[in-house]
């Protein structure tokens, strides 16, 4: 069994009357890549700062490498951290920045130089070592920040939205490099992000937070294919949320009234009662149109409202008779165009693509707070 590197136990952080983090617990395994994901203000950065020792928790405990670090100051926690705006020391060169942590550890000069050189090569900026941060581009600064944190070989590397202030294109490139560094260096990474696609691209484990609590945690595929609440399904982006009422059961299916016809979901371990109002979530790319729709177990009819070109994908918006909108995602080279705007189009999806959301607050509207 894998060893636990970081254990967060019943962590709570209150500011005066506001509860930023509300009694959360999780475990990060040694060598894994954990992403704390959630909308801004959900408390993810607070958790990271408490792990780093930059904030004190109101309640709860943190264990790093088996040690309770409640009384351990930041500089003896064997962690290091990459900040959103890099926080490179402006009065030190790249080399001096990277060397800082090693000097703090009283490492001899020869070994220091060797390690600095090695890590600068790993992140691909050894030719910049005499420059000052102000002379570097955003991407280069981020590489220095990574090198500076990695060179001390911490038990845990904490990353606080390290790509947040970079261009989209640069983000995508550095995502790949951070993932590669993680694989090569076999350290434990805890990465804070509000960007789902970043989390999917990098995480072994996603901890999805909302309003100071954990909504769901697990592997990216688990979160994507088995969202457990309307919040999670909504956060995934291209998921259709259809309000339905439970009508009854047949064989292995739950029969649901969608207002414009019956739809079906697989039976659950704990089934809802007939009459209950729940949400059905269906991924936009799981929905078939036209002829392909006719072989599906779930079939409805929509009217094509809109077709949005998105590069590699096209999003079709259709409307059911009760004004409910359905998004359908198709790869743009798939060549099938479902008729003209305004024309009726058959919609369908497989039984196993119906995700029933039974979570307690499933009746809250997704648009809440917007």
């Amino acid at each position, binding site marked *: 069994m894998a060893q636990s590197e970081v254990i967060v136990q019943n962590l709570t952080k209150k500011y005066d009357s506001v509860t930023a983090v509300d009694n959360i617990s999780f475990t990060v395994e040694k060598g894994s890549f954990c992403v704390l994901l959630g909308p801004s203000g959900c408390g993810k950065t607070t958790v990271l700062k408490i792990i780093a020792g930059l904030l004190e928790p109101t309640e709860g405990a943190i264990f790093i490498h088996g040690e309770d670090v409640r009384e351990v*100051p930041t500089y003896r926690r064997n*962690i*290091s*951290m990459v900040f959103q705006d890099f*926080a*490179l020391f*402006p*009065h030190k060169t790249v080399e001096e920045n990277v060397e800082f942590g090693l000097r*703090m550890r009283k490492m001899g000069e020869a070994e220091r130089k060797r390690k600095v050189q090695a890590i600068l090569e790993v992140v691909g900026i050894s030719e910049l070592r005499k420059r000052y941060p102000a002379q570097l581009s955003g991407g280069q600064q981020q590489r220095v920040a990574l090198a500076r944190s990695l060179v001390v070989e911490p038990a845990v590397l904490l990353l606080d939205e390290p790509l947040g202030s970079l261009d989209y294109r640069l983000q995508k490139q550095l995502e790949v490099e951070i993932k590669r560094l993680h694989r090569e260096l076999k350290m434990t990474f805890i990465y804070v992000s509000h960007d789902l696609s970043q989390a999917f691209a990098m995480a072994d484990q996603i901890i999805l937070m909302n309003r100071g609590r954990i909504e769901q945690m697990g592997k990216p595929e688990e979160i994507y294919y088995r969202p457990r609440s309307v919040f999670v399904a909504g956060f995934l982006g291209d998921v259709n949320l259809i309000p339905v009422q439970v009508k009854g059961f047949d064989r292995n299916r739950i029969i649901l009234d969608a207002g414009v016809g019956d739809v079906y979901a697989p039976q659950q371990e704990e089934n809802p009662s007939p009459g209950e109002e729940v949400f059905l979530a269906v991924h936009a790319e799981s929905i078939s149109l036209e002829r392909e729709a006719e072989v599906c177990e779930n079939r409805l009819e929509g009217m094509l409202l809109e077709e949005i070109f998105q590069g590699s994908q096209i999003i079709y918006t259709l409307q059911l008779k009760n004004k409910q909108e359905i998004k359908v995602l198709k790869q743009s080279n798939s060549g099938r165009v479902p008729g003209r705007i305004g024309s009726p189009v058959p919609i369908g999806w497989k039984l196993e693509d119906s995700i029933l959301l039974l979570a307690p607050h499933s009746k809250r509207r997704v648009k809440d707070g917007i």
Partner: protein
Amino acid sequence: MEKLLRIYLTVLILFIYLPIFSLTVFSFNSGGLTFPFKELSLEWYVKLLQSPKLMEAVYRSLKLALVTMILTTVLSFMTAYALRERFRGRLFIFYLFILGIVIPGITYGLGTALFYQTLGIKKSLWAALPVHVIWTLPFGILIMLAGFDPKIQTYEAAAKTLGGNNWAIFREILLPLLFPTILGTALFAFTLSYNESERGIFLLGTDNTIPAEILAQLSARATPELYALGTLSTVFSILLLGLTGWLVLRKS
């Protein structure tokens, strides 16, 4: 619009500097105080240097200003460092310090003289030190607080996560980054103390600093070597302020 502002600024600045200018002009006038400018001469500057009473006062002022500068710099660094944290009563404390600027100088000097009398402390140059520090401290704190920009807190956090303890952070991050601000504070404090008269006047006894000496001599009679001294003091203050400005703003 922009032209109007330019004219307005020019007029205002001329207006501020004309009195200084006339002082300077007359300090080079061999005729002295009276209007018709007679002849360019260094006569009054020579007299100034030959006046032991004035030169002693200058020496005293410099000594006091130097010690005030050191104390103010250290105290304002500590105070600004403390005031950076958000805590209950932070603003209240900040205003208690700022009060040092608005409090009537004469009242404050008088109060201190009374306080000393109660405690049995004799009047002397060093008796004026506390009131000088209290006068310069609020300015020092304001400059320091402006220098502690929010990014510095991030650098400190980064240094902590890299294994830096408090002393290492002070030495490696705060001191080099704030060095221009610290030096600026020191110079500003020096200049303010050197030019201070109101607060110290009742505390100095016979150890007059130079502004106190000028005030004392003026009650009797205005002599043109005071113009020479005023001109020198002003030039000195301008140079120090220029250096302060350059130090504080160089990094941005």
